[in-house]
């Protein structure tokens, strides 16, 4: 058993870190977050050159064919850099949905352009009820047309085509489709913009049934958790650096245990999230029977941990942590968006409970006072 990264996995992670640091440094990230879509065509073409836009998809569609663990590592590094724009929406979310539900012909038509870096996309899931339970989707296609609205759709304004989850199937429509209206939903995370997407008798192409969506959402959920891990790591690094240099009472504030122990907890929360995310990636890759639960464990823990790590990071920075100039709040904003996306900790705890609390077969062995 080897729960560490292989040489090639270390290489991928390391080169991704260098790539994001070089091509999307903090100044560039801050510039992009002030734009309408946080998208940059030049950066996108560099992401494509790296093979990142096709990372987990089959070579037949122009992908690179790497595994889910590799996706976790890439997303961790993207999260560390707070990569702005539609990478998650396009590659991780739309790509995984197409990979899971679409026919080979539809994959050639939609997944291949994503892999080749030619198309941006997203998936419209939530409605006004904001429920992540797929059964709560109300929008229904009628004679190949959609009428209704979707909320919290990430990066919709920069998408070339939008994938829509309806009651009776998964549909694709062009950004130029008639009756389509996209308007911003200004939200905390400035690096990943949210939109309302309205359809009015908008023609849409059915690409598959909703039955296989869960698998794609599991991949996206795990990848989002990985992104949170990267954000936590960056928040921890910035905070520890500050605690080493900021002086009060004549010494670095990191000398004080009240500060040091908060940093230790940030470390524990970050590392524990990372362990859960790597395991989820492995379980997805191996199609392990506990993959869905593993994803819920990762998302549950990382959602809470990212918020807590952010709380501690801001607090340790004192007044500096409350300024716009300090980067910690940018990660904190992203963490809030990602915390609720694909179900927050409460949602996933209930999903875990449905598996472990309601399971009929209980074989507890002997429990005694002296066993621990």
């Amino acid at each position: 058993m080897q729960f560490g990264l292989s040489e090639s996995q270390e290489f991928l992670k390391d080169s991704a870190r260098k790539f994001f640091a070089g091509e999307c440094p903090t100044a560039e990230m801050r510039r992009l977050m002030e734009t309408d879509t946080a998208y940059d065509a030049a950066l996108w073409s560099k992401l494509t050159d790296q093979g990142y836009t096709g990372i987990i998809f089959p070579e037949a569609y122009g992908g690179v064919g790497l595994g889910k663990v590799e996706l976790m590592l890439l997303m961790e590094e993207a999260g560390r850099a707070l990569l702005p724009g539609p990478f998650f929406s396009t590659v991780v979310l739309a790509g995984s949905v197409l990979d899971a539900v679409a026919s080979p012909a539809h994959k050639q038509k939609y997944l291949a352009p994503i892999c080749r870096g030619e198309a941006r996309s997203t998936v419209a899931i939530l409605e006004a009820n904001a429920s992540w339970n797929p059964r709560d989707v109300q929008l229904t296609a009628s004679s190949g047309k959609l009428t209704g609205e979707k909320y919290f759709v990430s990066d919709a304004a920069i998408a070339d085509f939008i994938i829509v989850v309806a009651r009776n199937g998964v549909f694709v429509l062009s950004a130029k489709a008639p009756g389509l209206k996209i308007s911003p939903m200004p939200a905390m995370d400035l690096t990943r913009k949210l939109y309302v997407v309205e359809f009015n008798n908008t023609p849409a192409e059915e690409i598959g049934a909703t039955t296989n969506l869960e698998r794609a959402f599991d991949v996206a959920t795990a990848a989002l958790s990985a992104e949170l891990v990267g954000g936590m790591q960056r928040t921890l690094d910035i905070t520890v650096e500050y605690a080493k240099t900021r002086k009060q009472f004549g010494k670095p504030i990191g000398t004080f245990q009240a500060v040091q122990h908060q940093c230790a907890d940030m470390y524990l929360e970050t590392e524990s999230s990372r362990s859960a995310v790597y395991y989820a990636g492995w379980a997805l890759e191996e199609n392990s029977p506990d993959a869905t639960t593993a994803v819920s464990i990762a998302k549950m823990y990382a959602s809470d941990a990212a918020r807590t790590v952010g709380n501690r990071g801001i607090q340790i920075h004192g007044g500096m942590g409350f300024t716009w100039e300090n980067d910690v709040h940018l990660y904190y904003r992203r963490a809030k968006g990602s915390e609720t996306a694909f179900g927050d900790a409460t949602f996933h705890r209930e999903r875990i409970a449905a598996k472990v609390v309601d399971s009929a077969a209980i074989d507890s062995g002997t429990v005694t006072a002296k066993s621990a």
Partner: protein
Amino acid sequence: MDLNLTPDELQFRDELRSWLATNIPKDWNEWREKPIEESFPYLRAWQRKLQEGRWAAVSWPKEYAGRSATLMQQALFWEEMARVEAPPMANSLGLGLIGPTIIAHGTEAQKQRFIPQILSAEEIWCQGFSEPNAGSDLAGLQTQAVLHGDHYVVNGQKVWTSYGWVGDWCELVVRTDPAAAKHKGLTVLLVDMKSPGVEVRPLRQMTGESEFNELFFRDVRVPAENVLGKVNDGWNVAMSTLMYERGSYGARLHLIFKRYITRLIELAQSIQRNGRPAAQDPIIRQKLAQCSAEIEIMRFNQMRAFSRLTATGVPGPEGSIQKIFWSELNQRLQQIAQEILGPYGQLLGGDPRAIDNGMWSYAYLRTRGNTIEAGTSEVQRNIIGHFVLGLPRSY
């Protein structure tokens, strides 16, 4: 990354499984709830049996009757032992902590003299580390050893000594150079507990039982050849013992905690709360799920740490994460148990109405010790802050 067992690991596990299948004692359930003073001969016999199968000290080098097991194999060993609910070994400190320290730091004569008796449980070992005025600040210990010709004369007091009441030998940390800086003047002595001047008293803890002892040393003579490692290098010797303390042994906790939570879920399905089973109460469900998830994360953290240790070779400060995680998780688990059991949670063993014979009230109290023993949570956070994150020393 590959979480499947390697052929070597599978073979190790299967060999152990088949050995356990024929050798695991069938009557342990009749003994496990008895006071350890009564069951101790039973535990000695079990250790001897394990030793006959060469399973008593799998981590030890082959030349010392071990199996030179990798860290992952050691983890498998403890998992399997927990899976079959095997009794503990009588000489657990000798096998887990002190034997490895003697193998690492001892002279050839010391190894010849002590190692076989540790393995056979003929000589039980205890540890004399903490003192009334030296807990977290272990290096501040005051028990003194003065060299008189060919022997040391030891005076002082130790506390929180496991197995003190049955110990034949003690790994004792003493101050040999009071003039040196506090970490520099310590030495480890191997002390015969039958020496004149050694007194052992039970220490009654908040659970009501006495797992630990106090040791008193009054003019105890210890031959100079019983120094372990170098004189005044005792801090390094003692630290290597403490590193073993945070090793692969934790692998068994996953199964043990899983048994706790599974039993708790079973209880929650039958205990009524607001007119329905507690297991259907949304808040209880949230808490059970959180706890179950954290039990899994504890295992993921451990597996990652084992893989890292396998790559680097020596146990390091990352053990502090495991210690904080399992001890605080165990406390949260017992708190949830109390919430589910309600007034029944407080009943002590012996009351016919107590659930699981009072296990939950005992565990609730006992787990308060988890964040104190083997390095408090505060010390572990200091270790992470300073040694992992590189923050300045806080003390």
